[in-house]
């Protein structure tokens, strides 16, 4: 989050400084780690000779957090997870101790090792071996897409769990095109769909995972469309520079999500996606903020015409509220309406920024947020690398029970995209969120400048369609675009300002605006 005005921020900082030590203590207590075992009762039953990796869900942990597993006083592990081998019958008590900057908490679990015939027939179905530790899971950013002739797209399975030596097979239009192979034998479970040689129209790609327990298939409908240009919409005299529709508003959890103390409720409780996108568009029309929440949260908007790629000049204008000391960069994506249905269900291209291709930029990133079980709690997350963390609950900024919008629904949601390395620092009560060089929304880079023709007070961000890249890092060479997606790029939060969340105040076609 950032200031709505410098005054507002100052007032808040003063307020924070004025907090009594009691409140500080309470805040720190509030930021202690939490531990939740996958088996809710912390009582595990294992067959003799079996192995189980125990992966608790933690909150308020980061890369500096330390873990200590112990049994009968002896340390047996220092990782976030622990694998127990049920070698001998009996009861075992295992402690896990988790330490972050605010202190240490510990919890204890019990493992009862029993003979196979002591397990009742329906025990696994009854949940003693928890479903989330044994159920096969995979995730996909999309299952239907439109792609122009001449392009390729990578189809990839994310966050695979519990495939138990399963094999993967890709089938395109009833013909096996890859596999079967084991996951450990490949870098990733993915397939590059190439339109070359394929007819226009629908093609069905299937991914099947098969192991001794089950066979699971995911279907992808891929529509091969005419090459770009078929549905290009010309700029007319009445065309407007501002986007005319917000198609999707999917904020990740954040303290400006589902309420915000400073400006009050942004969108009423119980709102639908349709209502939410309408409110977002109205905000853009007034140049008000729309927060995308934490990493992965996004908004998709479109124009009433196709926006031309000028080749070398800027094409898009996106306003945020960055400062040199406080930038919350968002990745910008663009897309063409290649099937002409007026909906953003087509291939996306990332606009490369200064970090593209460097170690600061993690592409094909996925992050799952979990709605807290209890109100007024931090929201936990886990990413595709197994990292975990939180979006902090901060009643100073937002007193609503959950930072989770109703239309997002469910108890967990996964966002896919590109992540930028978190660069913020917090020292002596002061948060520093430095910008990257250029190419990101809500980022005080070299391309975020004042143009008094538009706005005498505030600066705006300028972006080039010519920076659009295909999934494999090549220049996309798009002639035009129809849709824009902006997505929060960084994870992380600071103790006083909360989660890093990109804000968008409007998206314009620079060629009309100027």
């Amino acid at each position: 989050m950032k200031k709505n005005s410098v005054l507002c921020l100052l007032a808040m900082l003063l307020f924070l400084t004025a907090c009594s030590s009691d409140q500080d203590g309470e805040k720190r207590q509030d930021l202690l780690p939490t531990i939740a075992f996958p088996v809710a009762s912390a009582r595990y039953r294992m067959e003799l000779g079996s192995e189980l990796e125990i992966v608790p869900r933690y909150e308020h942990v980061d890369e500096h957090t330390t873990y200590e597993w112990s049994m009968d006083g002896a340390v047996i592990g220092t990782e976030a997870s622990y694998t127990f081998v049920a070698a001998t019958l009996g009861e075992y008590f295992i402690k896990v101790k988790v330490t972050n900057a605010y202190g240490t908490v510990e919890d204890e679990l019990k493992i009862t090792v029993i003979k196979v015939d002591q397990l009742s027939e329906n025990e696994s179905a009854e949940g003693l071996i928890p479903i989330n530790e044994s159920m096969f899971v995979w995730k996909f950013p999309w299952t239907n897409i439109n792609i122009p002739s001449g392009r390729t797209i990578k189809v990839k399975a994310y966050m695979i769990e519990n495939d138990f030596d399963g094999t993967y097979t890709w089938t395109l239009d009833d013909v096996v095109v890859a596999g079967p192979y084991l996951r450990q034998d490949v870098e990733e479970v993915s397939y590059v769909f190439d339109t070359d040689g394929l007819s226009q129209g629908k093609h069905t790609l299937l991914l099947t995972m098969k192991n001794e327990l089950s066979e699971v298939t995911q279907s992808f409908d891929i529509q091969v469309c005419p090459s770009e240009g078929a549905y290009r919409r010309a700029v007319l005299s009445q065309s407007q520079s501002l986007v005319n529709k917000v198609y999707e508003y999917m904020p990740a959890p954040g303290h400006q999500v589902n309420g915000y103390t400073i400006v009050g409720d942004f969108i009423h409780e119980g709102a639908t996606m349709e209502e939410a996108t309408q409110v977002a568009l109205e905000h853009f029309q007034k140049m008000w903020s729309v927060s995308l929440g934490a990493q992965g949260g996004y908004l998709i908007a479109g124009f009433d015409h196709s926006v031309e790629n000028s080749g070398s000049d800027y094409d898009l204008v996106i306003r945020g509220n960055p400062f040199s000391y406080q930038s919350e960069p968002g990745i910008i994506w663009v897309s063409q309406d290649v099937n002409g249905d007026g909906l953003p269900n087509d291939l996306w291209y990332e606009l490369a920024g200064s970090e593209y291709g460097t170690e600061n930029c993690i592409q094909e990133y996925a992050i799952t947020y979990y709605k807290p079980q209890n109100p007024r709690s931090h929201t936990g997350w886990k990413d595709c690398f197994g990292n975990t963390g939180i979006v902090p609950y901060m009643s100073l900024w937002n007193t609503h029970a959950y930072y989770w919008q109703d239309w997002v629904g469910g108890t967990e949601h996964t966002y896919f995209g590109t992540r930028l390395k978190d660069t913020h620092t917090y020292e002596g009560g002061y948060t520093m969120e430095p910008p990257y060089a250029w190419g990101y929304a809500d980022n005080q880079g070299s391309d975020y400048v004042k143009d008094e023709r538009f706005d005498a007070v505030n600066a705006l961000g300028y972006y080039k369609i010519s920076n659009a890249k295909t999934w494999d890092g090549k220049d996309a060479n798009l002639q035009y675009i129809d849709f824009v997606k902006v997505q929060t790029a960084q994870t992380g939060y600071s103790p006083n300002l909360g989660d890093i969340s990109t804000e968008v105040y409007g998206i314009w076609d620079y060629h009309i605006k100027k």
Partner: protein
Amino acid sequence: MQLKKLFSYMLLSASLLTAACSGSDEAPEEEHFSSTGQGVFVLCEGNFNSGNASLSYYDPVTKKVENGVFQRANGRKLGDTGQSIILRNGVAYIAVENSGIIWGIDAETFRVKGQVTTTGTQIINPRYVHFVSDTKAYVTDLYSPYINIINPKTFTWMGAIATGQEDSRGYCSTEEMVQVGKYVYTNCWSYSNKLLVIDTETDEMVREITLSSWQPKSMKADKNGKLWVITDGGYSMEGDSFSDNIPHLYRIDAATGNVEMDQALDSDEANVQIEMNSTKDVLYIINNDIYKMNITASHLPVRPFIEAPKDANGRRHKLYGIGVNPYNGDIYVGDAVDYGQSGAVYRYDANGTLIDQFRVGINPNHFAFK
């Protein structure tokens, strides 16, 4: 009576019946009691079909226990299979299930003040009594598809609430009752996985809550209006089993019926039970041993608060009942030992330090604090 032990009871009772029948016809004397302090009633279930339920009375100040006080004060037997005891306005109401009786005795003299009598099978096998008011109480039943309504002052039957539950293996069980606002919640124990919600203004069942595991055995309500329910998960014994014998602990929001917590506990060898302290923020749970849990904790601790005693062969005693003294937080644990011999009661302070222990009748299962 613990259903999972039904068959072993029957075997036991066959041998005990002879003993119970012989020498029990002597003309009894009636003793005069006058217990005015804040004593503790201990109901001893006895053995099924043996007619040897009994009542003990313990004075926590003098640490003196009087066993068999019902028979001693009244010159007659308490009955067969004492299930529950509850105090109201100086009267202790005792449900004796296999005798189909609810006694009301004076809490100071232990003399019978009344007995709920019903015609036919209105009350078949009474389990628990819950007071909606001084003149209206609900009685649950092991077999009846009705919760009976009685007037505890006059010991008369007033009516019945249809539970709408179908017979399951001959049982149509309703068990413990707790009240949150105007609604009474009861758990259907035998061969069921339901909780029922009853509107005390209309005396009608208004809702069912279905659980993920079988045989909800015990239930309490906390200070936040949450129901804490423990199932025994059925039973498993030679030649017969029902479900998986894995107890589950639930926290359920009474207002909405939403299950907020569902945790599988350890396979149980005796009797699962929930008790709560007087401020209704700490749970005591029997699951082989005794566990203590704050209502805000994320799970039941894995280490027991009080461990069940073990016999010379290392076999764990069967802990059978638990009560918490509302005046000082002392914890009373009923030990059925092996179900056959006289039981024991252990009294602990709130920190789990043993204060006293004494022998009582067979299978101590329920406590009432004056």
